[in-house]
């Protein structure tokens, strides 16, 4: 087993504080973009129901491309660095967020949307004041799935010089440094679990506040 001293050494040698910051930096940009695009797509296909099936089918197809392949496909367009990794994250994350947003908006109990209309809310007001707030728990669920996707894809970014903790893993594999692989692997895993737990907490709070089931 590794001693604390040894872990500290590996951490130092591999600049893991910097790598962690890079990692979380890419991750946050990717997740933020995913949320903005995903929720917008979800609202759009809800408002134009005819587009829902084609859009969701297309996103499903994107989802089936292996993540490594997707990053490599994006390389010629976005060059080396964080670009392809962030783009791949976003492409993967749109589906769960958009699908949950769409399902959430569609499935708001009819009695509430009926009352909203009957007491004089315009369709836009009903969307903003009733449908979206009441869909928040489900939207948060979609974001949580996206978060887990993103953690995985960002780690893969090490292969295409995106930086982040994936780089440490990649170096460890190539130079056959078992301790570096172990420390970086465990740390990446722990980060993912922590972030997921945090997202789960938010989701639970939203359920208590906005959930009706």
């Amino acid at each position, binding site marked *: 087993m590794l001693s604390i001293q040894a872990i500290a050494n590996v951490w130092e040698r591999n600049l893991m504080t910097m790598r962690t910051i890079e990692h979380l930096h890419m991750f946050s940009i990717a997740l933020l973009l995913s949320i903005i695009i995903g929720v917008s797509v979800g609202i759009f296909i809800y408002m134009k129901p005819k587009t829902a099936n084609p859009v969701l089918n297309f996103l499903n197809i994107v989802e089936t491309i292996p993540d490594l392949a997707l990053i490599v496909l994006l390389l010629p367009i976005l060059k080396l660095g964080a670009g392809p990794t962030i783009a791949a994250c976003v492409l993967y994350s749109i589906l769960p967020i958009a699908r949950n947003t769409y399902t959430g908006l569609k499935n708001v109990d009819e*009695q*509430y949307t*009926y*009352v*909203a*209309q*009957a*007491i*004089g*809310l*315009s369709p836009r*007001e009903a969307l903003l*004041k*009733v449908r979206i*707030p*009441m869909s928040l728990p489900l939207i948060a669920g979609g974001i949580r799935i996206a978060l887990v996707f993103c953690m995985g894809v960002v780690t893969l970014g090490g292969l295409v010089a995106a930086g982040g903790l994936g780089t440490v893993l990649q170096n460890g594999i190539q130079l056959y440094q078992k301790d570096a692989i172990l420390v970086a692997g465990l740390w990446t895993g722990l980060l993912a679990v922590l972030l997921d737990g945090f997202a789960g907490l938010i989701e639970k709070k939203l359920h208590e*506040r*906005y959930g*009706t089931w």
Partner: protein
Amino acid sequence: MQTERLFDRIDSIQLKGITKKYGEGFAVKDLDLEVIGGELLILIGPSGSGKTTTLRMINRMIEQDEGSVTINGIDTKNVDPVRLRRNIGYVIQNIGLFPHMTIGENIGLVPKLEGWNKKEIEERVKTLLEFVSLPPDMFMNRYPKQLSGGQQQRVGLARAMAMDPPLFLMDEPFGALDPILRKQLQKEFLKIKNEINRTIVFVTHDIEEALVLGDRIAIMDQGELVQVGPPEELIFNPANELVADIVDNQRKFKHMDTLKVKDLMSPFEDKYVLQAKTEACDAVDEMTKRDLETAFVFDEDALLGQVEIVDLMKCRHREEKLSELAKPIKTFQPMDSVAFALSEMKNSGEYLAIVMNSKHPVGILVSDEVLLKLI
């Protein structure tokens, strides 16, 4: 979005030749009906008679296929539906308070959309909550699921009154409540109705409710209007069998002499019992939890009287015990005759009495319930 007020008072609402088809059948067929300003018009009929459809065509929640609806001479077809609905208070059976908003936010929603400022909204919400007998400080910041059914229905009413509309549409507002609660809210609603003096169209399938509340009653069957008029006209000059059937009071009293209290009482349940030493504030919480409007106060086994949640909430700040607040209530024996019990209750103007078997409560007698069971 701020909308201009459409009308300050209702002179008349005219429904002319209204038809609404559903597939091959008619929900409403060539209906002519006038609602006179200031009246409470009841729409009653068997299910599928088109009463709710008719109501919903007034605020354009359903658009008619043929015919026109005019309010004060203005064809509703020419009015923006959002603007129309903000001038009409709407109350439905399942209330539909938004679960993610507090009571205050629910009531203040439309005023907020109309661009009122925070203070105006808060004042309005407080006034309305007091009007429906819910102390604002206690209820404004609660969420709907923390309220009992009766309290939610009061909030529903307050929300409908938010923009001070000259017209109310009510679709079986008390239909989902238990008989005791329903009777109590009807009593209060009647008081409110007289105070606000607005035009109300009210759908129900409960003839007792119709006779108590309605200025005029419109009876519908299979999408058509059968007869419309004041209650006594329907009782004395029914247009056909159906009307006679719906309003006939004769049969109700046929077996009255032979019936005993025990035949018509509702069973007594432990949830109605509160102990004399309970403080008023605790009693309010307890009654909210048990979804009660009225409870009976006992000192150990001895009956002291009844308390109503509306009265308890008024003395919220004092730590009074229920023993001081309980109002006397009539008691009957199971073998008393119903006719006797009802006339006693009528004389004292009470609608509730308790049935005691020597010292133990065994049932509750609700005057309206008794009449319904006799039909």
